[in-house]
């Protein structure tokens, strides 16, 4: 738990000079790294998340992170870098899911069964490793403040690759996501795109695991996109909005966690959840207001 205690480290008392407080926060290398990596991950997850929501792959994405858990813990047990195991397993799982394509839709039970097995496998691997608690904690709930400068560079490279690939397949992917039959008739390689997107999702999930962990990937992958699609329906704007919200949640979470004892992942997920609730609440009130207004008019 070394990194968690570092968070309430010397000098992290709140003063009323915000500029000085923030400058002080960035004096620490681990905070600078956390902000850079967190920003990259939030942008990637937000943009990929739009297609996750559009293609109804939220549960598949969640399951993919659990496949990654088995990979990461297996790598730890084998004495290799957990990120290698994470990438290997999520990419493999993503390729299989992508090849199944449309047949995956509505197969929640099958996905759930595989997910449970992968978690069980992960527990076995972790039990084979001596440093059980810390490693398990980092993989399951993320360890953004424990991220090294090398990790930041790896995250940056993976992020750039993911975004470049997403930009390259953007139009046909949108076409195939909305109507695979018409897209296929127009010559769009629907099957290959399905596999390609799942590989991108695997990359995005692997990156997000570093920040919020296997269990909380949803908060960066799905929640921002789900909130964004309530604000606008223009595809590029929804994507930009989702990325922006993800970055905002991450920055707020990191800043609050710098001053308060609970871990970063708790704050990121809580801020995301609260925002989602607030947006839905405001919209529900507005619709009710409109309906109520209409009823009043009829009565009058």
């Amino acid at each position, binding site marked *: 738990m070394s990194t968690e205690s570092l968070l309430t480290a010397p000098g992290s008392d709140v003063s009323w000079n915000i500029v000085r407080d923030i400058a002080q926060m960035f004096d620490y290398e681990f905070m600078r790294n956390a902000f850079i990596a967190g920003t990259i991950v939030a942008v990637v997850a937000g943009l990929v998340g739009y297609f996750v929501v559009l293609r109804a792959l939220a549960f598949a994405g969640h399951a993919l992170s659990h496949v990654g858990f088995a990979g990461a813990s297996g790598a730890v047990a084998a004495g290799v870098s957990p990120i290698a195991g994470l990438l290997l397993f999520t990419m493999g799982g993503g390729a299989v899911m992508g090849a199944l394509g449309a047949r995956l839709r509505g197969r929640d039970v099958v996905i759930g069964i595989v997910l449970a097995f992968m978690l069980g496998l992960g527990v076995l691997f972790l039990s084979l490793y001596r440093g059980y608690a810390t490693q398990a904690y980092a993989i399951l709930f993320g360890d953004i403040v424990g991220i090294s400068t090398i990790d930041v560079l790896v995250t940056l490279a993976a992020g750039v690759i993911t975004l470049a690939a997403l930009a390259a397949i953007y*139009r046909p992917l949108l076409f195939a996501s909305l109507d695979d039959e018409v*897209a296929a008739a127009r*010559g769009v390689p629907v099957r290959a795109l399905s596999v390609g997107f799942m590989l991108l999702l695997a990359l995005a999930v692997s990156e997000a695991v570093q920040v919020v962990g296997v269990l909380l990937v949803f908060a960066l992958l799905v929640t921002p996109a789900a909130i964004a699609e309530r604000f606008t329906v223009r595809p590029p704007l929804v994507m930009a909005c989702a990325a922006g919200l993800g970055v905002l949640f991450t920055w707020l979470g990191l800043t609050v966690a710098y001053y308060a004892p609970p871990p970063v992942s708790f704050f990121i997920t809580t801020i995301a959840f609260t925002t989602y609730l607030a947006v839905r609440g405001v919209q529900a009130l507005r619709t009710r207001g409109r309906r109520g207004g209409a009823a009043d008019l009829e009565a009058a």
Partner: protein
Amino acid sequence: MLSAELRVPAGERGPTPVVALERVSVAMGGRTVWRDATFAVRPGSFTAIVGPNGAGKSTLLKVLLGIVRPSAGAVRILGQVPRRGLPQIGYVPQRRALDPDTPVRGCDLVALGIDGHRWGFRLPRGRHVHDRELARALDAVRATPFADRPIGRLSGGEQQRLLLAQALAGEPRVLLLDEPLASLDVRNQVAIAHLVASIVRERDVATLMVTHDVNPILGVVDQLVYIAQGSVVAGTPAEVVTTETLSAVYGAQVEVLRDRHGHVFVVGLEQEAAHAHEH
């Protein structure tokens, strides 16, 4: 039984047909769906494909799209063997229920019909031409007023218009429509059928439309292809829309009625009979 003289041999006369089938048979999973289909579609004509559910109407469209390979016979579409990705073919599959929260506008859907098959994203440079093509496609189906709204929140008729616009956006010479009238109310069925007919005439695009209900398309189609009990027969509406022929096609007691204005109604097909009396 179905009479043989209704068959129209491929390319009998007039201009080169845009679609031609010569003794085509289709088998799926070892079972023959239908066999010996021989008919042709003239450029700029409107053909309806009718028949009971499960007769293989959609399969015929899939043969023309190159998705299903025939087990026998020769098929030509625009002079070529059917294959995926032929740019001059517009296709509208059976409409599925859309999530009301789908984060996409109607015009985004239509725009994909113009350039959705290209890699990358739309560059601002070609924006001008793109916007003009998009406006033209939306205008053709009179969808401009609701094109900026989320697709999931539009009515079935509005969604159908947008799908039609998407297919038209690729400037097709052949349009293949699969049950565009399904799950629409009678007024919208007639409106869409007439819209398609006007597109056929104005844009000179040959259209094949699958429909299980004959009434909305009577009076606007040039040719009827009907599929039943494994056989495919083509003819003009006058030849096909008779009590004897339709009863044989559907295997049910179907009656063709004519009122004093010359309007034709087909009675006895599911609940459509009730709708016909309302008008």
